[in-house]
């Protein structure tokens, strides 16, 4: 069945052949309804096993017990069965949307089949491994067959940037802040759609966690599977290389005005006089982001909870160093294996407002949780959680 699914997709997309893959990241183990569980159990019943390394994206249940969800009994049972089925297929219980920070980093140029939009864009752009945007079912089918259809971003000629995204006109100080990158990601995703762009005009080399936030936001706002940053990402030592020596089809000069507009789009509750919760960690927080959270929190007690979503790879470190207890006693709710927009963890509350520093949470929270969103930096999120009211400090606008 797995091979039939891969072959039918190859036909649909016009791929001439299948290529061997070295690893997979599986987004399919998140419960969206009974049909997905029944599919996974059909594979298990047929004796299927993954033939390459396959890490798991988030599930609907926090199996570590750090947080609780409000799934009704039937859904809870089916979600649990689904997670178990994927484990039986031989997938690793990583349960994170940041597998690339949990030891799964395919090498430059390798062919892989990754699912989950932020993981895909990071894998292609920052690691330089080659994957299409694999969806549920195809990801596990590729992991079992160890094959993928040869089209799209697996092929060198399709990895060329055609659009130059020039940020040299944007306030340089703002660009160097963590606040700017989800804003830029929202703008980039909407403007570029499914094209490939190369970002130019940066006066510094962006670090991994801000590229993570940029890619995640861009992939939720558009169909982004790969971006280049001239001088930073591995396929773009410079603009011309990213363009494969061909003139760009378009050059977009980003203005402060465009950034202001994009920042506005990340909030749906602009005139809020209070907040009900803060959510951070989409993609899952790294240990460095937790260090920043602890530094900003300074042991203070929160007025409203901060839901901090992460994976087991980080939870282990937090527990080892006694930081989990410390954070929880401040009022931080650590959420592992899952996150607050994929499963009902936030309390049900009419007219509630969620503050976040994640462009991806901002995109999905209104429809998936019913909370209106307010976008701010990590430090603004922390100060707001301490007071229970939106506190905006250092933003330039």
């Amino acid at each position, binding site marked *: *069945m797995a091979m*039939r*699914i891969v072959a*039918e*997709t190859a036909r*649909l*997309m*016009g791929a001439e052949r299948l290529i061997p893959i070295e690893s997979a990241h599986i*987004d*399919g183990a*998140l419960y*969206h*309804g*009974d*049909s*997905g569980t*029944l*599919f996974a159990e*059909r594979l298990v019943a047929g004796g299927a096993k993954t033939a390459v390394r396959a890490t798991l994206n988030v599930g609907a249940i926090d199996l570590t017990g750090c947080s609780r969800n409000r799934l009704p009994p039937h859904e809870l049972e089916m979600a649990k069965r689904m997670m178990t089925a994927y484990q039986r297929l031989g997938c690793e219980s990583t349960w994170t949307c940041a597998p690339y920070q949990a030891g799964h980093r395919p090498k430059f140029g390798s062919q892989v089949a990754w*699912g*989950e*939009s932020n993981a*895909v864009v990071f894998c292609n752009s920052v690691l330089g491994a080659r994957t*299409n*945007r*694999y*969806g*549920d*079912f*195809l*990801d596990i089918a590729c992991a079992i067959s160890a094959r993928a*259809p040869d089209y799209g971003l697996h092929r060198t000629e399709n990895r060329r940037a055609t659009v130059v995204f020039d940020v040299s006109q944007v306030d340089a100080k703002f660009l160097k802040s963590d606040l700017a990158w989800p804003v830029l990601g929202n703008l980039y*995703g909407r403007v570029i*759609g*499914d094209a490939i762009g190369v970002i130019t005009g940066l006066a510094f080399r962006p670090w991994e966690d801000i590229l993570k936030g940029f890619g995640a936001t861009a*992939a*939720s*706002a*558009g*169909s982004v599977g790969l971006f280049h940053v001239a001088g930073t990402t591995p396929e773009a030592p410079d603009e011309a290389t990213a363009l494969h020596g061909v003139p760009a089809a378009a050059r977009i000069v980003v203005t402060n005005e465009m950034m202001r507009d994009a920042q506005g789009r990340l909030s*749906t509750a602009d005139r809020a006089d209070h907040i009900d919760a803060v959510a951070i960690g989409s993609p899952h927080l790294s240990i460095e982001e937790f260090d920043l959270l602890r530094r900003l929190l300074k042991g203070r007690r929160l007025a409203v909870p901060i839901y901090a979503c992460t994976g087991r790879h980080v939870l282990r470190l937090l527990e080892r160093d006694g930081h989990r207890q410390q954070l929880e006693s401040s009022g931080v709710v650590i959420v592992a294996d899952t996150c607050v*927009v994929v499963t009902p963890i936030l309390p049900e509350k009419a007219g509630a407002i969620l503050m976040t520093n994640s462009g991806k949470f901002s*995109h*999905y929270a*209104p*429809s*998936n949780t019913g909370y209106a969103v307010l976008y701010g930096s990590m430090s603004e999120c922390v100060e707001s959680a301490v007071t229970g009211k939106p506190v905006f400090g250092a933003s330039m606008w």
Partner: protein
Amino acid sequence: MVSLQADVLLPGAAASATALALTAPISFWGGVDPKTGVIADPRHPENGQRVSGKVLLVPETVGSSSAAAILLELVHGKRAPAAIVLHEPDAILLLGLIVAKEMGYPTPIALRLDRERFAELHDRHVQISTTGRLTIS
């Protein structure tokens, strides 16, 4: 009566239904409620409309790679569109139909048609043959 020929991306049942042409790209995950078939994204222009039983015209898909799971769940719950018409083939979304077929569920037909034609189809009654011929009345 106008007649159009579309490419068949994935074969499925013939359909006769009202067309719903989306005017903005959609993310099925987070954008469509699998339990009701209603477009749930408050920022989408067709927010509140139901995709179930419609000839759904999709100009572009965006966002999450879980779109196939939502589509499979819609098919499994008998809340799928009567037909899906895309501007270009989209593996992420259509995997939902490929898997539905493997699971033995009846699946809607998937077609490819230039999105410039979508507006004239909107809200009209459209008949679709298994060979991809659209007849608009």
